């Protein structure tokens, strides 16, 4: 994902089954066995992933949290002589280790696509989430950079609509990609402006 490769749409027309008319919304029941093993949008193009370096940002923040919590537990155990503090401290350490191990997978699961008329976003492995936002619904695009992300040359991009629940935040983009993507999104939103 290093090249700033931002193209609208995903190529040939057959890759857009979303535009096929569905007659009066009569959805047919499909047998559970015949379904795919997990939630996966069929026929969409390739997902653009965030920078693998973003794993570092997440790991650092997780470790910081773990260090503070474990430090507190150790302090209680050694200085304040509270024996019980070992258990919550150990639990926190365990959770932090599991999170750090899973972090690369979680970051790999974040993806987005610029389709013709909307932005497609996904994230999560255990708890999967897909969101589609028409460009015309954009109210603003936010770019933020934390200290670690700045050091790595990354930025977070947030696509804000009138609905708070939309929650499309693409973290860990290389800075120049984020700027390009922001400009592209603003341009797309301008050309497809819709009311509220």
């Amino acid at each position, binding site marked *: 994902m290093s090249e700033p490769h931002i193209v609208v749409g995903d190529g040939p027309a057959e890759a857009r089954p979303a535009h*096929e008319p569905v007659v009066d*919304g009569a959805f047919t029941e499909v047998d559970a066995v015949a379904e795919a093993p997990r*939630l996966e949008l069929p026929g969409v193009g390739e997902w653009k992933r965030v920078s693998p370096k973003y794993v570092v940002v997440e790991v650092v923040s997780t470790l910081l949290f773990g260090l503070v919590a474990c430090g507190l537990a150790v302090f209680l155990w050694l200085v304040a002589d509270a024996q019980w503090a070992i258990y919550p401290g150990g639990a926190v350490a365990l959770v932090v280790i599991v999170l750090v191990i899973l972090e690369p997978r979680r970051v790999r699961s974040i993806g987005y696509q610029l389709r013709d008329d909307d932005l497609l976003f996904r994230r999560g492995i255990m708890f999967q989430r897909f969101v589609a936002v*028409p460009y015309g619904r954009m109210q603003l695009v936010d770019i933020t950079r934390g200290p670690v992300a700045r050091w790595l040359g990354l930025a977070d991009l947030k696509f804000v609509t009138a609905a708070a629940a939309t929650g499309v935040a693409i973290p860990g983009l290389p800075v120049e990609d984020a700027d390009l993507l922001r400009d592209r999104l603003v341009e797309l939103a301008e050309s497809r402006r819709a009311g509220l």
Partner: protein
Amino acid sequence: MTSPAEGTETSLADGAWHRLHPATPLFRGGIFMVAVLGFILANLRERLVDFFFRVPSYGDDPIDEIFRRGAVGWALLAIAVVLIVILVVFYLSWRMHTFRVDEESVEVRSGVVLRSNRRARLDRIQGVNISRPLVPRLFGAAKVEVSVAGQDATVQLAYLGSSVADGLRRDILRLASGARQAAAPAVGGPSAPGVPAASAVPTDAAHATGETAPPFGATPAPGVVSRGFEEASRFAAARVQEFLAPELDPDQAPPESVVRIPPLRLAGSIALSTSTLVLVALAVVMGVSAGTGNPDWLFGAIVPVLGGLGYTFSRFTKSLRYSIAGTPDGVRVGYGLLSTSNETLPPGRIHAIHVFQPLLWRPFGWWQVRINKAERSTNRGAAGQASTTTLPVGTLADVRKVLGLIVPGYDGDRAHALVTHGLLGTGRAADGFTNAPSRAAWRRPFSWRRTGFAVDDGVVLFRRGVITRDLMLVPLARLQSVGISQGPLQRMQRLASAKLHTVAGPVTASLPVMAQSQALRLFQTLAAGAVASAEADTSHRWGSRTAAAAVAHAAGDAAADGDAAGRDAAGRDAAGGDAASRDAAGGDPVDGDAAGRDAPVPETAAAVVAPGADGARS
């Protein structure tokens, strides 16, 4: 404004600066201040005099003391100075508070020391609210609130003459609709009694400057005494007539579109609500504690019980005289017995609708309708009722009527059938809804059969709940985004849940469980449908859509054929005014006619001036 006296109703929306009702400072808290001052003087005058003047001893009355010391002149002078200062402050604040309405925006300037200026674009208007709190209503004044999207983003015009306020709203909505000047509404109306007296108002200064007109009805004029009495009696008669007039002017809306609530049903619905049950429970606790001679509980419960009684009573009086009606400018919702309030929502300002029935209402077949609006006012209007409750209680027929009003064009037979099934259906028979599969039964043991969705004619319907029956409707043209999600347990069963993201409000349109494959289909349908509907939507200039509607209808037919060639013809690269046609033909998977949905009544207007249509991609 050279001749303010002849101000007709339309004169306020002419782009010039106007002033508010001269009694405005009094209505906005002045009366309260006078009352407080009177109270202080009546009760604390000895102490005040003692405090300020350190008079060591006086008789039993400070006025006697003033007489005795021969300071009458000074005392009168002091009182006069205070009065003059108050009057000057009031006058200045009134004089500096001006507003104007032109083709593009509504603007208000106010403040003497701290100047403030607020301006709202007309094509962003979410609703216009006219409220009449009791005291201003007695004096024939009303408050106009023009709201745009956002928290507390309203432009307030408080206060205006009552009839002037109605006329101003009509003008604002006409300008906002984008309709051309030609179609001035024929609702000259029963020209309100206050207007003719406008020439008698005591605003000589304003007349002298000649730049503004006094935009208000009659006020008690301290004019020539002989005329004054006549004026006063006319004024009083007008006020009484207005006070007794029906809340909804019968000329404003066709009677068949009006929904009202019989007082008995209103009382019943309140009696059978959760808050009343809690209240009764508390009262029982009080009675028991009093009976057993243990008064601790009594005192604990008495405050909430009194508060609850007050709340229930005000809820009742405020929902009395409720009406919802379709007017040419949008849906008008009005209510209130003593203080009245009515809001007009232009078409396309409603983002999500929730129709639901608490268990206790089921024997009577009553429903409530709530909505999400982009405008969120913390000021709850004169009635204090949440302005998101569009129908406090109604029958199935009422719900249908209300839905027809607030989702324009969504009142065909199929829509009726879907809504009815959505409200009453058990999900055992095929009724147009796609329901959760049986493997989801353990998640929703009672309601899984009817937990389902339908997409029809540009509206998404989510149905769920069996104890409290719920039906959510979201117009695709208002959908901000759509999301589906799946947790680990759901994955094991190939289930998923969906959520429609709309502007914040009391309605959350989500469906907790559905088959995974159907969730994917729904996601794709809605993602495409939202784009198409949004671009075909012209409701921000709802009066100027004839051309767009015609194009959209034609395109809709093409799409209905399912003809790929038709899609290409209206193709991706269509330019200019053709954008609407492209969208209707190219994108809408739900129903080819969705583009025309927002234009049920072709109106006589000129060209398309909708940004949605002219924002053509190049």
